[in-house]
């Protein structure tokens, strides 16, 4: 009677490997792949959100998206918001990290307090800021009026460009501590000898910053920029709670547009189409990020 030869050790290891990796693959499929494929699948239908009933429309949603002024307007707003708030986060974040890297009084306390905005709930932060911006009772207008800088209260959130500037500023305040954390960690690992040598060579503080600090921070800043760009690009709660996308559609970003389509207009199919478009843009960011991290690892 013929019997199969026993599998080689290599094959048995391979089978064990498959078994061991299976849970991870299953979890990945459940939480990443399934929603991803679902979104793409839904984007090919016209679906009423509350009942999830709908009909096949093929690529009609994508055609409508490309022809839609709302999409391009939201894409532009998303770009302005992302670039604006990211730039400020970097400037504030690096400046604060440099300050906190010095030997200052209450250094530990200052390092803890600077993280406060980042850990604060967005809803709470927005409520506080909306109160500060309030036209009748807000302290911002009150101070400006007392200082004689304005004659009448400024409409911070209800007119352009104030609304966009306001959300960019609040976004920068909320998220710059992330930049501080990362940059401060890198600053602490720069060899002190580099600064000592530069000082002996006659370099002033500005030269030491441009010739030593910035080059040393470059790699970490690239990663920070990419991560924050991805997170800011898909920001929803802060903008929705601050302006709701208004006035008109001047601060409506792609995330808000997805929300409007899905839950206000009950068009889940169209919302999925916008979400897929967002995903493609984010995929671009992610690929750059992965390439950069690979390069750093190789370096």
């Amino acid at each position, binding site marked *: 009677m013929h019997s199969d030869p026993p599998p080689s050790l290599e094959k048995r290891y391979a089978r064990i490997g498959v078994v061991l990796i299976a849970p991870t693959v299953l979890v990945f499929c459940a939480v990443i792949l399934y929603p991803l494929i679902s979104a793409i699948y839904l984007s090919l239908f016209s679906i*009423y959100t509350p009942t999830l009933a709908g009909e096949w429309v093929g690529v009609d949603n994508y055609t409508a998206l490309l022809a839609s002024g709302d999409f391009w307007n939201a894409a532009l707003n998303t770009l302005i918001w992302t670039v604006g708030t990211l730039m400020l986060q970097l400037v504030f974040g690096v400046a604060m990290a440099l300050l906190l890297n010095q030997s200052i009084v209450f250094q530990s306390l200052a390092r803890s307090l600077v993280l406060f905005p980042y850990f604060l709930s967005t809803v709470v932060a927005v409520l506080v800021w909306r109160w500060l911006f309030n036209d009748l009772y807000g302290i911002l207008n009150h101070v400006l009026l007392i200082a004689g800088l304005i004659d009448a209260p400024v409409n911070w959130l209800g007119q352009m460009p104030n609304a966009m500037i306001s959300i960019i500023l609040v976004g920068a305040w909320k998220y710059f501590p992330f930049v501080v954390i990362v940059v401060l960690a890198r600053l602490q690992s720069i060899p002190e000898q580099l600064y000592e040598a530069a000082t002996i060579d006659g370099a002033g503080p500005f030269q030491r910053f441009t010739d030593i600090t910035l080059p040393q921070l470059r790699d970490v800043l690239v990663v920070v920029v990419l991560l924050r760009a991805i997170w800011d690009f898909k920001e929803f709660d802060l903008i929705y709670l601050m302006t709701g996308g208004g006035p008109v559609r001047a601060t409506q970003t792609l995330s808000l547009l997805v929300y409007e389509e899905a839950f206000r207009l009950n068009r889940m199919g169209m919302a999925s189409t916008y979400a897929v478009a967002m995903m493609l843009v984010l995929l671009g960011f992610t690929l750059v990020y992965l390439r950069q991290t690979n390069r750093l690892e190789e370096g």
Partner: protein
Amino acid sequence: MTDWLSIEGRSITRRDALKHLAAAGLATAVGGCGGTDEDGTITLRWWSTQGAPAQRAAYRTQIDLFEAAHPGVRVVFEAMSDEGYATQLAAAFASGEVPHLITHMPSFAVQGYYAHGLIEPFDDVIEAIGADEFYPGANDVYRAADGRYVGTSIGNTAADMLWIRRDLMERAEIEAIPETWDELRAACRAMQGGGIYGAPLPYGLNSANSLTFIGFIHRAGGSVFTPDLEIALDQQATYDALEFYRSMLELCPPGATGYSWGEMLTSFVSGATATGLYAGRVLANVAAQNPQIADSITCALYPRMSRDIPAWTYNDFPCVCIPSAASNKAEAKLFAASLFDPAGYIPQLHAAPGHVLPVLETVAENPAYRDNEIIDRYPQEIDLMASAAAQGYNLGFETTAHQPNTKAGEIIASNAIAEMVQRVVLNDENPQAAVGNTVTRLEEIMRS
């Protein structure tokens, strides 16, 4: 007792209806199903868009009364928001995790959900409450195209009354409360100054703007839809309303470009504006937060373009309805009917006196209802709001001649009308272009 209604070809009394509901509730409790704990306790979830502290306390009283009368049933109250209920319900319906009872949502939203089979017919609950205890025609707004009722009003609300300060009128030598737009504008201009603005109209990108502006179209003699639901927005009345709205901006606080209901209320109650546009909650809030002006305030029907145009008051007909996917529907119906029991209903009305007005004629005439400090202090205002609300309308029910508009909820949620206002008033865009753009959006929504 003459309360009866024909259900499936036979007549039943109100007492019978309650018995049937109770029996069905018991059967469901014994059988056990979704929303039932291991120990057999049934938990009902009650969602409402109105959850002010005083109202929550009144709801607690109603819940306690119901739970005492129905051992084994527990009711949990959960608050929604006026701007957020559409989102919360869309998610709830899609997931199947629906509440057992929804209250205070506008009638047009209920009609929209019913059209998609998401809401349970309500005829038997109305019968259990007592159909002839309601004001005549009070439930017309809840009659669906199939002839069934999809809910009922938990109260009436005259949402866009003109509130005005008599002390400021005297100071500005204004003798009569404005009845036309020209008079209102002149009065606001005369009263504005010294840190006080004329009016707090909502110009934000929100439902308050849309719902309010629809009233202005009607007060210019127009409508958003024709009675057979053709879009009628591109008409002179819309342009007149937009022009008036634009002219009022300089008389509103700077932040009015983002105002919604909350800011409209606060600005008048705090004394920041000489006039207000809101429902009866103003009375209780002024009494509690700014009693110095309590003797000076009064309300009137909001002015219209000219005296020969009939008044039009926005009433959202805050609902009571039951999702069709809810479990333990029999208990939910029992609880819905119990909300109108005078022992709990009157305290609930007193929690927002003048804001939520009774829909039951028998309750309005009940001395216990009139026995309230606010209602006693402002009898003329309360009576005016009650009569205005009883003849009130909204986008789902623009006039008595209009068919129910089941897309009204989505139109309001889309902010299409608010956006039109912002385009013209804030961006100074051509009104014809803005209206044309809005008509296109409304067509898309009506087609979807």
